[in-house]
């Protein structure tokens, strides 16, 4: 039976607590071209991600997050925006749920995986969500729905 327990000591390890207490790029992106916000209603975690996408260079120039929630949801958001800064959109699209869990590092029970994947879901949506101000933003290909993201999330 799958009663393997995540190691909680590992969960609250320095690396994660550092991101929680001293996050990377928490706040507003100075020049936002794309943004998305979502929550995990079950626990109330909220994450907003703002991106500065250079469409010509196909690159994420800058990334910021904001939000409210548990250590996992907030630390993982911090790790994620740090990780994707400078990456190509192609790389972001290919960054799957399991890559996010690997980036986070600590083993998580399915329940807590939802917390960790919140920012990942928000990011996957954000790259298809140009903001009104960013009129220069180009369409970035067919938008992937949240349901699709959901299914990949389970399927992979």
């Amino acid at each position, binding site marked *: 039976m799958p009663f393997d327990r995540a190691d909680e000591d590992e969960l609250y390890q320095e690396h994660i607590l550092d991101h929680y207490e001293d996050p990377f790029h928490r706040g507003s992106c100075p020049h936002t071209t794309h943004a998305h916000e979502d929550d995990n*209603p*079950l626990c109330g975690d909220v994450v907003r991600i703002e991106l500065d996408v250079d469409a010509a260079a196909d690159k994420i120039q800058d990334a910021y997050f904001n939000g409210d929630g548990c250590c996992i949801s907030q630390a993982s958001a911090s790790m994620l925006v740090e990780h994707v800064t400078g990456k190509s959109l192609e790389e972001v699209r290919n960054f799957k749920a399991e890559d996010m869990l690997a980036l986070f590092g600590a083993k998580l*029970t399915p*329940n807590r995986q939802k917390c960790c994947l919140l920012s990942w879901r928000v990011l996957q949506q954000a790259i298809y969500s140009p903001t009104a101000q960013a009129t220069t933003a180009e369409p970035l290909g067919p938008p992937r729905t949240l349901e699709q993201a959901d299914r990949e999330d389970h399927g992979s």
Partner: protein
Amino acid sequence: MALASSSLTTVSGFDPESIRGDFPILQTRLHASGDNPGVPLVYLDNAATTQRPRQVIQSLVDVYEKHYANVHRGIHWLSDQSTDLYEEAREKVRTFINAREREEVIFTHGTTESINCVARSWGDANVRAGDEVLLSEMEHHANLVPWYQLAERTGCKVRHLPITDDGRLVMDALPQVLSERTRLVGITAVSNVLGTINPLPEIIRQAHAAGAKVLVDAAQSVPHMATDVQSLDCDFLAFSGHKMLGPSGVGILYGKRALLEEMPPFLGGGSMIRRVRLDGFEPADLPAKFEAGTPPIVPAIGLGAAIDYINQIGLDAIHAHELLLTRRAHDVLEALDAGVRFLGPKPEEKAGIVSFTLKNVHAHDVAQLLDRAGVAVRAGHHCTMPLHKRLSCTSSSRASFYFYNTLGEVETFGRALGDALRIFKRK
């Protein structure tokens, strides 16, 4: 006759004696008192509900003693365990009926609730006055009343696919009763009285061609024969745990994902929502959307254990053995020379259900007198009053088998019936 029986046992290839020890209740002796050792229980009421093997009972005890908490919502250790076991059970059900996705498998409390869920949720959203719902004349009340209620609410019309005198669907009539007004066909896979195994693929093909959805009442089929919802291509399928070794209080609604996604929620409460405000709510994703409140956690886990047990025996062996018992029961009843009338077709065309009337003895007296001999059969209309009316009888007796029944029990049934007849033939 004893010899014939044992040679027949070999034919079916499955020997129920090898597993009867797993079923504590089958060791019961009835009507013992004082010096009277009583008589062994011969349980032939399996279409009403089945008994459970030790393995299923133990699965319940294990959960309550070691793993129990509420599912989904907690993040503590026990809650994770309950959730894992509950979702494992869902996966077992999914595999058992070959659903494509786990989100298509909804835990309900029984066939009845499953069908009501479709009638209220899908029905209220999709059926209008003038539309039609097509049912057969052999449906259980569980697959009639919810549609009559829908008709009362919406003004739709319920039509009926007729049956023959020997209890088979009049398939030739299907094109006439199906029309572009037909929104849904509700059909039992196996009649709980006649035992008739209905030609689902053909019905579903024609229904879909007419643009209708199909709900299959599989309460009497899933426990006894292989079910593949993908190859069937049915839209909804409903069945109960307690008719397949499972615990009391759990059932299944299978639905195609696209349909379930579109449907509004049925019961409202915890878990089935994504968000609740003081002025409304958003439903949750599948399958939670249709599992409001605390689900039947432990019964669901027990149903998983029941499926494990059935898989171990094998549905082919089960079906073959039941056919053997059914054949023998027909022979035994005919040999009584008591004006027996079988409701339903020949053994070869049906599941392990033998309903009958006797010329001069009322069904209730049959059941009561059989009970004296330890034989449990059911008497009455078996929740199919319109079917009984169609067959011009108010009640019948029914012996229904599961794989743990033996040919010896069928003989006991026949002998006890002979004794009962003698009581009424005293003059």
